[in-house]
């Protein structure tokens, strides 16, 4: 198993671990994330049909609707959110859901920003751990890395 360590920027600090779900395509959570199940439901998105609950979701940023934050907040409350989100362009929509979840429910999910070149090193199925300081440990089972969809 390969181990890779990346230094990200902790936007919402926290530690988390889980299997990675990675796409270069941005996602709107409204119309794209079913907070009752944690499934990605944007039928145009490469991750459509996969469950992000309990995973480390890596997408560049949130596109589309302003309601993305509300959907992520519902998912955090319902326990169907990803364990952490890794992004490239820092995203206000995701960060806000964590800030409000802290205010309302004293809980949040970590949000870590990485460079685009580091983002390209992530792959669906990797085991990922993030820590308070934005350090991302990637344990990969597959040395050959096909392009991210």
């Amino acid at each position, binding site marked *: 198993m390969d181990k890779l360590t990346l230094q990200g920027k902790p936007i919402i600090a926290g530690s988390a671990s889980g299997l990675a779900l990675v796409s270069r395509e941005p996602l709107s959570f409204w119309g794209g994330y079913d907070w009752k199940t944690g499934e990605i439901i944007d039928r145009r998105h490469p991750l459509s049909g996969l469950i992000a609950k309990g995973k480390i979701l890596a997408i560049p940023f949130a596109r589309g609707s302003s309601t993305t934050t*509300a959907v992520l907040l519902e998912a955090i409350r319902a326990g169907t959110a990803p364990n952490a989100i890794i992004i*490239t362009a820092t995203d206000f929509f995701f960060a806000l859901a964590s800030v409000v979840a802290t205010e309302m429910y004293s809980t949040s999910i970590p949000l870590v920003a990485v460079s685009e070149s580091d983002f390209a090193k992530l792959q669906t199925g990797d085991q990922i751990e993030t820590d308070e300081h934005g350090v991302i440990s990637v344990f990969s089972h597959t040395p050959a890395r096909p392009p991210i969809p």
Partner: protein
Amino acid sequence: MWRRGDSQWNLFDIETKHMSLSLTDKDHAMLRGDHGPATKMAMSILARMAEVAGAQELLDITGAHIDSTVYIGDAGLEFAERLANLGAKVSVPTTLNVSGLDEHHWQEWAVPNDWARQAQRQMMAYQSMGTIPTWTCAPYQTEMRPSFGQQIAWGESNAIVFANSVIGARTERYPDLFDICCAIVGRAPAMGLHLTANRAGKLLLQMKDIPEALQHSDDFYPVLGHFMGKTSLDRIPVVEGLGVIPNEDQLKALGAACASSGAVAMFHIVGVTPEARTLESAFQNKQPEETITVTMDMLRQSRRELTHTDSERLDMVVLGSPHFSLAEFKALAPLIQGKRKHSRVKFLVTSSRAMTLLAKQAGYLEALEAFGAQLTVDTCILTSPMLPAEIKYLMTNSAKFAYYSPGLLGKQITFGSLKDCVASAIEGKALRDESLWTN
């Protein structure tokens, strides 16, 4: 916000702490709770987010539009009621976006009773804060339309892009839950599209050999917008080479499309939008990061992407995302005058109470009623579980409906022009006039 290349936020400077946010005495007083517990809660969220975003200070806003009214589930409702119970009041004129139901006519649709009760509680919570119950996603077509240069905090992606691009008002791309915090406090982070330097175009889209007849057609704008969103992602696109001056509803359709397929909060059209009198002013005298030539082939592909079925089956035509304007009611009336929709097909227009009242006074609704159409206000098919399960195949002239219906509603959808939608409703199957798209 924090678009790629923003100088205020350097992703690679990992060791740098957040730039310190400097707050005024009044900001501090709000944070301490001197202005009441609701203002304290709103200000703590606002200050925390401003800090996370790297803003150096807050600025005064003079208007807000609240997208948080859209009912999603218990968390959003608990947030609204927490603020309302703490006595929250907005401090600037504040309009409300669509809610989860047509307040007075939801029983005519498939909205479950318990869902309706929750959505109504959320409506009441936001109304109790001293807001203006516009219940529309097109607040820019009400009397609360902002003016050029006005600093505002708006939610609702289509409203944001319209305010910035078409009016020249200034808002960041604010999400639900943040818009109301800004409205209560009367402040927003001084960053992003609030600041002149960040309003420059980044991406140049040059139109090549696009027939003017097509540019006059209403279905051209959602298609172009869908393409712009996919191509621009989070950058500000600048369109050069349009041969016609689009009307306001065409710009509205374009904006809603690019804010659905991308994270576009502002666009420029050279010679059309107020901060793009010239190409140079659109780019603030800088060079585009990238230039793309837009061809008919690209637009045909974009148009194909908005349709999700090969079937001609049609159960319902849906118009009005963003909410139908008075001008759109006026354009629809002669198309359906003296005609009747097919008995098997439903025909729905979603709009605001204000526009519907004006359309009624102008006499546009009589033709609609005679045609067999239905009208819903306060909400739309995407934010209310109003469509019965047997409705499976939709047709629309809205790229936003086309974009979100498959994921949100699990429905098949065909995109067409307003004329296509009317013709299809009469024939009872999805038909499209391809003549403008084939040449």
